[in-house]
């Protein structure tokens, strides 16, 4: 197994709106945004999903917007929000000579307090990259004498695949397989941000792929109770700008509802088969720690008792202690949107994609990695 590649593909700087596939749509959306912005008002709009963060940096969308419209990067990068303590727990499992430790490639370079999974592998631990949890189960079937652990992370986009893998493990009677479950759920994180006293937000660009699973309904009470528009959005530049138009229209009209800009992919009710699998295998944890956001009630999933035989937290020794982030790193502030990535003292100096200190510098969906990669990408509205 080769180590996960660090990607530095040469990307042409996207300079002119005309280079987009739909320049006229973009120009129209930008004109409408400019028309909707009220003089003297500042708009703080959070894109929840890391995929949107990546697209916003890649296409330099911030540069196109009127200065009163500020985009705040949200907590929707699962690698970034996993706290150091859970990472260390995972690394303890990885370093156990009896265990084959499997995880997505995204996790391999994420630093715990004593190194990353990749560094454990270099020291001789049996750490393997998988691209699907079903591949971790396959490794368990191929190695009946070894214990195989899958380090499960992700929001509702990946949680159903872990659920179906556990159902499959039970069906096949695979006894040497366990999941270390770190799945989190998006709605409690949005609530925690809205309840945070140092955070004022005017609207949300809602996650695209998470919503293919959970649909749009779970956001309805947020829009209603917090009077905050939420628009579930696609990932194209035109989608993101169109979603901003929809949010600003609501703010202008004084309404706050959930709208689905990405209805070509996201059904309003979500994916019922996926929701059923989630409910069968997982239950909500009373609390879970998030990097930067602290402990959030009901914000993560754990494996139900009936699947305890495949739950690493039940069958293996896991310390489960909270570990503070490195003191100098300000990942928490960046994750909450209080600091911009480049305002962190370590950004681009001690902490780079090659030598990440914080998780936000590892994943391409992390605000710091995206900011680092696309520094200097500026758009001009050539007309």
């Amino acid at each position, binding site marked *: 197994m080769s180590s996960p*590649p660090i*990607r530095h*593909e040469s*990307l042409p700087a*996207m300079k002119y709106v005309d280079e987009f*596939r739909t320049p006229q749509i973009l120009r129209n959306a930008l004109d409408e945004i400019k028309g909707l912005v009220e003089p003297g008002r500042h708009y703080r709009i959070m894109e929840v999903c*890391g*995929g949107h963060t*990546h*697209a916003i940096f*890649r*296409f330099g969308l911030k540069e196109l917007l009127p200065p009163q419209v500020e985009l705040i990067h949200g907590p929707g*990068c*699962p*690698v970034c929000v996993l706290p150091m303590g859970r990472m260390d727990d995972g690394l303890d499992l990885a370093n156990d000579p009896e265990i084959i430790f499997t995880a*997505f*490639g*995204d996790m391999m370079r994420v630093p715990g307090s004593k190194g990353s999974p990749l560094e454990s592998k270099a020291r001789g631990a049996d750490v393997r*990259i*998988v*691209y*699907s*949890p*079903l*591949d971790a*189960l*396959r490794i368990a079937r191929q190695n009946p004498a070894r214990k195989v652990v899958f380090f499960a*992370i*992700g929001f509702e*986009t*990946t949680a*159903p*695949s872990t659920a*179906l893998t556990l159902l499959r493990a039970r069906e096949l009677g695979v006894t040497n397989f366990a999941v270390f479950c770190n799945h989190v759920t998006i709605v409690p994180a949005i609530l925690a941000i809205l309840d945070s006293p140092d955070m004022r937000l005017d609207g949300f660009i809602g996650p695209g*792929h998470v919503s*293919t*699973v959970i649909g749009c309904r779970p956001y309805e009470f947020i829009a209603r109770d917090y009077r905050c528009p939420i628009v579930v959005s696609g*990932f*194209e530049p035109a989608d993101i700008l169109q979603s901003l138009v929809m949010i600003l229209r609501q703010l202008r009209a004084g309404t706050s509802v959930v709208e689905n800009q990405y209805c*070509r*992919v996201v*059904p309003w009710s979500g*994916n*019922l*088969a*996926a929701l059923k*699998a989630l409910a069968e295998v997982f239950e909500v944890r009373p609390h879970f720690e998030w990097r930067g956001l602290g402990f959030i009630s009901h914000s993560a999933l754990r494996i139900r008792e009936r699947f305890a035989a495949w739950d690493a937290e039940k069958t293996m020794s896991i310390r489960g202690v909270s570990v503070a982030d490195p003191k100098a790193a300000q990942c928490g502030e960046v994750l909450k949107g209080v600091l911009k990535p480049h305002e962190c003292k370590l950004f681009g100096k001690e902490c780079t994609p090659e030598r990440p200190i914080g998780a936000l510098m590892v994943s*391409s*969906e992390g605000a710091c990695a995206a900011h680092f990669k696309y520094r200097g990408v500026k758009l001009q509205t050539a007309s």
Partner: protein
Amino acid sequence: MCLAIPAQISALSEDDTRLATVDIMGVRRKVNVELLQDDPPTPGDWVLIHVGFAMSKISHAQATEQLDMLARLGEASAALDEAGGYEFAADTP
């Protein structure tokens, strides 16, 4: 992990209705289609794949758009690595 990879269904597995052979950017792989049980795909349909599981059916236009998007985000080769890495159905004919 968070990549949504567009793929076209080439054939449904005869031995295991949970699996289908798909074409992912020219790579042939079996993926799990259980989550589409309420609206099962047929050969020729386009789907979005996450970590080996088809999560939603999409149009051809949407698939093209997503492929283009992956390329422009510099994630196309990561998506190919991921798709090429699905091995869970390698033993199934």
